């Protein structure tokens, strides 16, 4: 699937207007309901090339819930701030270790 195109399973006549937060393929068991024994086969059904689309759908789901409603508050801004703070702290952790105050914990 090329960048910027609709997913192959999207059919406007059946699905209506395109919703970027929905997965248009064959429905599978949600991850929260997968039994431990089925985990291997469940992971086998996933593909590595679907990871960017999964991230995109997650981003759109977050947007639909917190950014797009008519009366949003400060919540999405704070969530993005906290998220980016955590992410950059993790990236710079190697440097942070040297600023520890105590040697033995």
């Amino acid at each position: 699937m090329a960048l910027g195109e609709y997913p192959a399973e999207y059919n406007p006549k059946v699905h209506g207007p395109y919703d970027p937060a929905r997965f248009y393929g064959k429905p599978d068991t949600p991850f929260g309901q997968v039994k431990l024994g089925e985990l291997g086969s469940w992971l086998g059904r996933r593909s590595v090339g679907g990871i960017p689309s999964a991230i995109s759908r997650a981003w759109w789901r977050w947007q639909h819930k917190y950014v797009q409603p008519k009366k949003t508050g400060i919540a999405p801004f704070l969530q993005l701030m906290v998220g980016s703070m955590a992410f950059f702290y993790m990236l710079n952790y190697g440097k942070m270790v040297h600023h520890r105050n105590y040697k033995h914990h």
Partner: protein
Amino acid sequence: MLSRLALRSVQEARPFLVAVRPTSTTAVNKATERDEVNFPRRARPVEPGKVRMGFLPEEWFQFFYSKTGVTGPYMFGVGLTTFLCSKEIYVMEHEFYTGLSIFVMAVYAIKKLGPGIANYLDKEIEDIEGSWVKYRQESVEGLKQAVEDEKKAQWEAEGQKILFDAKRENVALQLEAAYRERLATVHSEVKKRLDYQLETANVKTRIEQKHMVNWIVNNVKASITPAQEAAALKQCFADLKGLAPQSA
């Protein structure tokens, strides 16, 4: 996993959804294969997802509630932060204290100015959306009014038809009057000519008669010989004598 849990609730947040316009103009959405049950039309929610403390989604707290009660997630948070700080995975270096001061100021600013700005922005949104809705409603009403005016104009045009009949009748009357007037003129002209002829004929006969009478009288007078005149005079005298003795 927690994110999926938090975000899944957007699909079920029905009470907060705004109804979409029921009309649609795309042929695609009216196709017979349209699966309205599994893929319903999206509606734009009015209220966002609920959060606690500004950024933590409510669903995370609900997730803990069944197992640990109300204080569960808070204890989890306290325990996690204690672990991170004591093991110095989260290092409290000098930048941390800068961040802490900024955090305190930000909390104060949000608590104080938040509701005011929210109300102002909500009012702005209402004004803008209201202007769109008003424009649409006013154009619909304007068009309805135009339809009414058009119907009235049609009714007035119908009235013109009656006026046409009256005008036609008027013209017919005028034609009739002109015709009659000309008829009268013709009649009088013809009568004048005929009268002239009559007069000339009468004058002619009168003159002829007069002339003839005069001529006859003159001729008779001329033809009376003196012997006839004396005999006539004698007769007259004899008649007078015969009459005279009776009137004594």
